[in-house]
């Protein structure tokens, strides 16, 4: 027999699963000192994955909705007012107790709390802040807290949230106002980015400024802000989506933009597409996002030569770029600088680091690359080593793109044991 909490948990965890972000973003290290009360720590980095569900996603946080009652009518959302999904609502105390009980059993790194909007945005936001405040002040909880702030809640409440949360986020949902107009008529892109802008200022103020007595200001969302975009519900192309991401990273200093392939939801609205967006599109967007942030690629380079401003679904964006720029290859693995090495399909940041370290001591040969576990099948048309040059026909071959397409697919599905 299910008890009350089990029923609520079932409904409110189910409602939260469409949210893509799962990581507990880096908010530095922290733990209860000697003689201090409380429980919990942050280990730095992106937090521990305590479990994995059969969809391959990491379970790091207790990710729930405070309630799935909602006064809004966003079409892509299972909890919109016009949906007849089962509803439930946790009390402040219930969420606090569940978080602590899960944490003490080493199930989770902390809490990721989101909510439907009940009564009005301020009322909802206030209850969420109460939960975070009670965890921090009543229970001296030092674990991770991520609050999904409510668009249109008062700036004062958003600021208070920042005092207790490690990370704050507001979902931008759609890359354009046009998309929001169609699918989330109550939401407004300038309200959302306005909130992001205020939070950005607050975060940097608390990091750098001091009080008039010279004390450091209290922590304010040290893990920064993140957001999420739904991909494939509206007609936006990849260029529009990535442009919007670049803008969010640059203007509002976001830590992460999450992409969520539109997934069929029970009791869906009729204006939604009939088919789920392909997961591969979401995957390609993450890869492109990665190239923008860590591999020194510009958006133009990534999109150059693509059809209809959509990323190539057959090849990852780095490989696609290399195939369009074959004249730059092969490159010499023993001489090329870091920036160029990072452009070789199959060489990740970690492998590049290993290559740079190892080549200080000897000239790298083909068998050295084997020892370093470089994916040779993928890199072989693009590099030269001390005893290896790719046969000229490899790079010229018409079939190269087709061949690599197959390798790539095997990689995607065969990665795991």
């Amino acid at each position, binding site marked *: 027999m299910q008890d009350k909490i089990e029923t609520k948990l079932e409904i409110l965890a189910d409602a939260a699963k469409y949210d893509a972000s799962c990581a507990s973003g880096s908010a530095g290290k922290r733990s209860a000192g000697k003689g201090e009360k409380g429980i919990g720590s942050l280990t730095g980095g992106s937090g521990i994955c305590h479990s994995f569900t059969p*969809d391959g996603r990491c379970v790091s946080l207790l990710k729930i909705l405070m309630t799935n009652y909602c006064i809004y009518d966003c079409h892509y959302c299972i909890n919109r007012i016009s949906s007849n999904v089962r509803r439930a609502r946790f009390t402040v105390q219930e969420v606090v107790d569940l978080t602590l009980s899960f944490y003490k059993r080493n199930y989770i790194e902390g809490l990721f709390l989101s909510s439907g909007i009940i009564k009005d945005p301020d009322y909802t936001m206030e209850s969420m802040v109460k939960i975070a405040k009670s965890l921090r002040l009543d229970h001296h909880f030092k674990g991770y807290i991520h609050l999904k702030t409510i668009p249109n809640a008062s700036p004062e409440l958003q600021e208070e949230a920042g005092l207790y949360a490690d990370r704050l986020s507001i979902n931008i949902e759609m890359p354009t106002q046009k998309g929001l107009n169609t699918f989330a008529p109550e939401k407004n892109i300038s309200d959302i980015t306005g909130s992001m802008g205020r939070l950005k200022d607050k975060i940097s103020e608390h990091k750098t400024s001091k009080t008039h007595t010279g004390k450091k200001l209290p922590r304010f969302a040290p893990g920064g802000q993140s957001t999420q975009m739904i991909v494939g519900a509206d007609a936006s192309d990849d260029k529009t989506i990535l442009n919007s991401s670049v803008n969010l990273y640059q203007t509002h200093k976001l830590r992460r933009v999450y992409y969520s392939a539109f997934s069929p939801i029970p009791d869906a609205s009729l204006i939604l597409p*009939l088919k789920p967006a392909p997961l591969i599109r979401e995957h390609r967007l993450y890869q492109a996002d990665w190239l923008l942030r860590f591999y020194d690629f510009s958006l133009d380079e990534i999109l150059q030569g693509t059809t209809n401003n959509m990323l190539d679904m057959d090849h990852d964006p780095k490989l696609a770029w290399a195939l369009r720029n074959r004249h730059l290859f092969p490159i010499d693995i023993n001489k090329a600088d870091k920036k160029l090495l990072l452009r070789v399909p199959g060489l990740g940041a970690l492998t590049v680091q290993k290559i740079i370290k190892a080549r200080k001591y000897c000239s790298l040969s083909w068998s050295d690359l084997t020892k370093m576990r470089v994916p040779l099948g993928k890199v072989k048309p693009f590099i030269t080593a001390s005893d290896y040059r790719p046969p000229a026909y490899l790079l010229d071959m018409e079939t190269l793109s087709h061949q690599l397409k197959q390798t790539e697919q095997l990689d995607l599905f065969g990665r795991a044991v």
Partner: protein
Amino acid sequence: MKTIRINTLPGYEEWRDNAKSCLLNYIPPSSIIWKGAEQTQDELFKELPENSKSSARAKNEPILKVPKSFVELAQTACCHNTPERFALLYKIFWRINFENRKLLNQSLDDDLILLNKMVKEVRRDSYKITAFLRFRETVYDGREHYVAWYEPFHYTLERSLPFFTKRFRNMNWSILTPYRAAHWDGKSLFLQDNPDPSQLPEEDKIEKYWLTYYAGIFNPARVKKSAMLAQMPKKYWTNLPEAKLIPDLLQNSEAKAREMIDKIKN
């Protein structure tokens, strides 16, 4: 041929003291058989420890200095479950002293590839214990006490303890593994060899909520079994309460996803 048996687990300090005295006596790696505490069947042939301060000390005494990073690597590799760990470490220790002071930079050297592989496996195992260990609540001496049974693949209990004492400082807990247990009372750690696994409470009042949560956040429209298995291989499933749900979740996923899509179409 000299046989040295390391009786402690994981055995770094004991290995280090023996390795130093062997090196000072110029005993080459090929003349030593290193054994770990795992290899108990050889008990009868155990040699008495020799006095290392022998008169045979040569003039050009080895420096016995190793880079700091070697100490960290050796401490980590000693936690590996392969009995060959001590021999490999001595060989590298020898080579650093007599062959190449900068051996550790040669990441393509065969011995180092082996060492780095062992270190990587130990680090992964140490991470997994912080991730997959599950406490159950019980009452001991009138106080809340949390107990976990965990089976690491290497001797990684000790090196993981700082994580648990920091995170659960104000809790009383016991972590039981097949070779050793650690008990924490909020102030100090107490280690105990070969603990009794039946000390793990059979139930926990919160576990059912965890199972409900786990089943609830799984999205049946996005099954990626291989991605799950890469991170959480089956060998870890025995002590994970939620793992027993996986077969059913997978089996029902297709039907559930289809149900959702049908609803959209109608």
